[in-house]
């Protein structure tokens, strides 16, 4: 596939969404339904790969581009992923200059609180999915406590959780 077309398709999906996985319906429509460049299974694997590693969930776009165009495709996907982010700089200048106005500050707070509500709504299914028994609850509570009450780096937490998962599997 032409890399410019690939870039434009991914950019369209990225620029019309407002969250990491928000572009998924458009990507599926373009790559699976319309152009038959990917199967649903390949798209699923790209999403899982994007969620498994560190970084934002939107990284799945890079995996989609890799599935379609190999390494050059992945590079193009990477560019499509980061391009819209720089729109934030003029937005910051414009809104930032008005951030001390009480009504603007309140509007920003309202936006932030609505985002928290959305975050809770996306955390519930993730938590249900992660629940596999008492051991998983212990890991969840421990990771909440470590992040909230200590300054331990999250990388150590992830390493510890992986080790605990491994140790638990040995005793099953």
């Amino acid at each position, binding site marked *: 596939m032409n890399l410019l077309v690939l870039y434009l398709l991914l950019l369209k999906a*990225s620029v019309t*969404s*407002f*969250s*990491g996985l928000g572009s998924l319906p458009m990507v599926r429509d373009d790559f699976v339904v319309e152009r038959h460049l990917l199967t649903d299974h390949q798209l699923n*694997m790209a999403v*899982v*790969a994007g*969620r*498994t*590693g*560190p*970084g*934002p*969930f*939107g990284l799945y776009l890079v995996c989609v581009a*890799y599935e379609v165009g190999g*390494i050059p495709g992945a590079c193009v996907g990477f560019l499509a*992923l*980061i391009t*819209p*982010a*720089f*729109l*934030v700089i003029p*937005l*910051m200048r414009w809104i930032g200059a008005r*951030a001390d106005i009480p*009504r603007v500050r*309140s*509007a*920003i707070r*309202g*936006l*932030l*609180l*609505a985002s*928290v*509500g*959305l*975050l*809770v709504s996306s955390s519930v299914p993730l*938590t249900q*999915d*992660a*629940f596999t028994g008492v051991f*998983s609850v212990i890991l969840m509570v*421990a*990771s909440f406590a470590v*992040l*909230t009450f200590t*300054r331990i*780096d*999250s990388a150590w*937490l*992830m390493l510890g*959780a992986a*080790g605990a*998962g491994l140790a*638990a599997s040995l005793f099953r």
Partner: protein
Amino acid sequence: MNPPQNPPPSVKKLTEIFFRIGNTTFGGGYVTIGMLGRELVDARRWINAEKFDLAFAIARVTPGTNLIAFCAAIGALICGVAGAIGAVLALTAPSSALAVLIAYGFERWQGNRIAMAAIGGTVAAVAGMMWATIWIILKPHVGGTTWNGMIRNLQVVLIAGGAFVASWIFGLTPLPIILAGTLTGFLWKDAKKP
């Protein structure tokens, strides 16, 4: 009142922080934002909580992946455009390469009992991290037991709770929910004294 801020770092130093946190934090954008808040606001004091919240709010309405826009905003606030570019590249380039490697190897791992046990442990930890991040973001917006504090708490319950219900029960997409939250905030002023 905000504690005094430290002078801005070099672009190289800022990039190192984004590289370390962005490529070792699992669980998606909000968890990474929580970790960046701990590091940049609480530990290093390169940016205050209000500017951090402003970057978070504006990144939320910027098209694309929120976390990447957030990094560009924070990088620009601390070190200008060079900081924005450094922050975005440090956060996304290595993790993109890793995501491609995972996509390549994932089907092979599915048959590997050891790899799947380790992944199961990290999935549970990520769920706990998501809830910790919610608390880290929400904490500065929760009032006390004074009249103004109670009003602020009511705003938290109504706006955040309303957004949750709109998404979870009614299945609304994020954009109208965020717009409604912003409008509510605009019309119902924050009771916090300046």
